[in-house]
Structure formats: structure tokens, C-alpha cells
């Protein structure tokens, strides 16, 4: 008998990271404390994952980075999910020029591949946590708007929506009570994948120096520092890279599982 099925391990990994971030608050970790005698020290009893180029404890910084990463991913997802869904509902429900305008705007946003637009926004807005969140918000809403709009378009002519309409239900009520519940499943799947994408996006921008600024820890910035000392201190890059990969992989697999359970077509 297997104790843990394949389906359960992503939840364990995700819980591990959430608990790690929460528990890190209890201990007085000092991710920014410099110890010159331990520069690039290999993992040992004192520092489980070794020390970085300024002798800072990699494990503490890893946890601080995880906190930033999860905070940004969840904040941006909450904001863009709300905003994008609302836009998509309005466009899909009303149709006409509202819909055409929204589709033109999303088409333009989708004309920038991958992370390029977030890089461009972050570049002009300048570095820092707030601007990083803003740059990611400006690009991440598009997926939700497209998805919701497409679904709303077909829901709009369903019997129960038409019935509610003819009984005189207000537009917000139709959207909130009669359309949104049917959209919840695909949106949940989309949001799960999006959290993984945002963890990578945050790390990418920080890697390019556009995100979290020194001395504060972030996975992307740590990887950038780590690459410089790849030969003398491979543990630095490996610790951060494996952490990032474990989290992203777990969230993606959870997304796949959710999609199968909720029977959402992508």
C-alpha cells in the first residue's frame, strides 16, 4: 500500500512552503545579517544550506524570498482575478462595442510574448515591491478577462439566465448569482496555474534587477548572485533553484489535478 499517492504530494509540497514561511516568522531569522567570516561557506551544522556571497544564511534568505514570492503571487492573483473576471463578465454579458473594445485591448496585450510586457512595465515604473506588483497586475488580468468573456458569452443565452432576466433580476444579480457560480471552476484552475506563473515572473523580474532590491531577499535576485559564484559555491544556486522548482512544479500539478477533478477543458 502506498502511503502517499501521486496526487497528494503537490499539496504536501505547497503546505510545506506555506508552513515554512509562517514558521519563519516565529524564529528571529536574520536574512540580511552579514557574516564576513562565512562568505560562500558550504552547508554545515551552523547553516544548513550554507552562506551566500556576503556570508548571509541562505536558508533564512530562502524563506524570506519564499514569503515575498508567495505574497506577490497571491496579491496579484487576487487583484487580477477580481478585475479580469469583472471585465470579462461585462464584455460577455453586454456584447456590442463594449465587447469589441475589450477584445481589441486584450489582443494588444497578448501581442507581447510571455514576460516581455511585464519587463517593459517594470522597466519604466522602476524597481521595488509596489511597482513589481503593479507591473504584474497590468499584465496578468488578460487571461481572466478572455476566459470569463468566452464563458459569459455562452452562459448569456442559457435558459436560467434568460428566465432570471425576464423575472426582472438586476444585472449585478444575474452576473453574481446566475453566471459567476458556473464560472468558478475554470477560473479556479486558471488562477492555480497563474500563481505558478507569477512565482516565475516575480523571480524573472528580480533576476533582471527589476524587482525586489538589495538587501532584501528574493529568489530571482539570489539566483542572479548565485550564478556569479557558480564554480566556488554551487550550493547557492542549487538551493534556490530546487526550491523554486519544487514550488512551481507542485502548483502546476495541483492545477492539473484540479482541472481533472472539476472537468475543465483548457
Amino acid at each position, binding site marked *: 500500500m502506498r502511503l502517499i499517492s501521486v496526487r497528494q504530494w503537490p499539496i504536501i509540497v505547497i503546505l510545506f512552503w506555506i508552513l515554512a514561511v509562517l514558521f519563519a516568522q516565529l524564529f528571529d531569522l536574520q536574512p540580511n545579517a552579514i557574516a564576513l567570516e562565512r562568505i560562500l561557506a558550504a552547508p554545515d551544522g551552523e547553516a544548513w544550506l550554507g552562506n551566500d556571497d556576503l556570508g548571509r544564511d541562505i536558508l533564512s534568505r530562502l524563506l524570506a524570498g519564499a514569503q515575498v514570492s508567495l505574497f506577490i503571487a497571491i496579491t496579484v492573483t487576487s487583484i487580477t482575478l477580481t478585475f479580469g473576471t469583472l471585465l470579462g463578465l461585462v464584455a460577455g454579458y453586454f456584447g456590442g462595442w463594449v465587447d469589441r473594445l475589450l477584445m481589441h485591448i486584450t489582443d494588444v496585450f497578448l501581442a507581447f510574448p510571455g514576460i516581455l510586457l511585464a519587463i517593459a512595465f517594470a522597466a519604466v515604473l522602476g524597481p521595488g515591491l509596489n511597482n513589481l506588483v503593479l507591473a504584474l497586475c497590468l499584465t496578468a488580468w488578460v487571461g481572466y478577462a478572455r476566459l470569463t468573456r468566452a464563458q459569459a458569452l455562452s452562459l448569456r443565452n442559457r435558459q436560467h439566465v434568460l428566465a432570471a432576466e425576464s423575472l426582472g433580476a438586476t444585472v449585478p444579480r444575474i452576473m453574481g448569482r446566475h453566471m459567476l457560480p458556473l464560472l468558478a471552476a475554470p477560473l479556479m484552475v486558471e488562477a492555480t496555474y497563474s500563481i*505558478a506563473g507569477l512565482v516565475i515572473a516575480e523571480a524573472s523580474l528580480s533576476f*533582471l534587477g527589476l524587482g525586489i532590491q538589495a538587501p532584501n531577499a528574493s529568489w530571482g535576485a539570489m539566483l542572479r548572485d548565485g550564478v556569479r559564484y557558480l564554480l566556488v559555491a554551487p550550493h547557492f544556486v542549487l538551493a534556490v533553484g530546487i526550491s523554486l522548482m519544487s514550488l512551481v512544479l507542485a502548483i502546476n500539478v495541483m492545477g492539473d489535478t484540479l482541472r481533472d477533478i472539476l472537468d475543465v477543458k483548457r
Partner: protein
Amino acid sequence: MLKRLLAVVPVVFGVLLLTFLLVHLVPGDPVEVMLGESATSADRAQLRSELGLDQPLAIQFKNYLVNLSQGDFGRSIHTHTPVSVLLKARIPATARLALLAFVIAIFIGLPLGIAAALKAHHWPDKLATLLSLSLSAMPPFWLGPLLMLVFALWLGLLPVSGMENPGSIVLPALTLGFGLAAILTRMTRASLLEVLHEDFVRTARAKGLSERTVILRHAMRAALLPVVTVLGLQLGGLLAGAVITETVFGWEGLGRLLVESIEKRDYPVTQACVLVIALAYVFINLMTDLLYTQLDPRVRYS
């Protein structure tokens, strides 16, 4: 066909408008940000008029479009080199990198996807799925250093970074290609699995064709259609991935130029790089769509 071509026009216009507006998103005065605090007010006034920032927004946008139509992307504010010269110098390096990555992805992704579909739910499938899932959780700034560590530093087979050596392209191309190979594997597997149950595959088998011919000639031809769309989208996506990969490996391409210009706050260069990458992406997507209509006679753009 014509409809699809016309649909590109508003998108291109929007892309131009958005890249034009980028500089105006700079909090405060972009001229001050670009020149730093030590600049005199005369310097600022000069740059402002050089960039046309002292004119109304609509006039600025008109001038931007007119200049672009003449191949004029403005000048770097630091070196005063025309941006078009910088672009011309960097585009070939990125094109080489992206194309090699594309080829690598096809040579890994297609066979792996086919193997996974033919042996669905057995170990080749599980291995391919594990591999593609792991690779898609490895962004270039983690996969790149990992490959660097193994192949350059530990095994000493390839150069670490730079582009002097002919072997220098291998690691960045692998970094970029592996990510796409992961997507391609999953797409090919799903697409081929769907087709394998179709009547025409059974017919092909029933008339005694070899399994090889059935798969490669009959099933793959149908299964490739959705794969082509994804490939087209992803070839353009490689250009965005190249921004980070080039930074990891010090590959002097368009992506590196973009990142350097951001570090130096050289906005005309930043703007031009973003624009070129986006337009290339739009163009590749258009070509993919048109190719799709050629491959699948059922889809016709009237």
C-alpha cells in the same frame, strides 16, 4: 485569408501605441530619470526637445509613427548611436539562438511526445511526462545555471558563457529549447492520443500498412495540426525567453540589449527592443495561422 491579414492592423496599431506610451508611464519626469540628478537644466531641455517630449502627445505619436515608417527608431541617449544600428547588430545573434533552440525543441519534443502517446500509461509515457513537467517548472534563470554547472564547470565540455567560441551557442540554445521541448512533448502526446482512436487510423492498420507508416504518415499528419499552432505561438515566445537566457549566458543579442538599456535607463532603446520583439511575435503568429489554413483545408479565412 484577407480577413486574418486585416485583423492584424488594429493589433499592430495597439502595439505601437502601447510601446509609445511606455515612456509616459515613467513616474515623474522621464528626462530627469534618464539623465540623473547631476544634469543641468539646459541638458534636460535639449534632451526633451530631442525626444520631442515638449510637444503635445498626439503630435509626438504622429512623429513616432512617421519616424518608424522611415526605419528611424531614434537614438540612444548615452552613445547617440541610431537605435536601428544597435538593433541590426543584435538581431542576428538572437535569431540564431532562437532558431537553434526551436530545432532542438522539435528534435526532442516530437519523438518524446510520440513515444509517450504510443506507450501511454507505461514507463516511456511516465518518464516523458515527468521530464516535461519538471522542465516546465525550470525557468531559464535556473535551468541555464544548472546546465552551465554540469556541462561547463564539472564536465568541461562547453564554454561557460560569452559568444567568442563556436560552442558558446550550445548551452543557451539548450536552455531555451528544453522549455519549448517540454510543451511540445505534452502537446504531441495529447494530440496523437486523440487521433489514434480515429477510424482512418484503424483503416490504415486494417489495410496492412506497417505500424511505422500508420503512425508517421497517417496519424501524425492529423495530429500535427494543433501542434503547429502551439509551435508558432511558442517560436515567438522564445524571443521573450531569450531576454533572460541571453542575460544568463552573456549572449549579445536583442534580449541583452533590452536589459542593458533598462539598466542604463536608455528608454529609446528599451522601447525599440520591446517593439521589435512584439512585432516579430505578431508576424510569426500570423504566418502560423496562414500555414494552418494551408495544412488544414477545413479552416479557411474568408
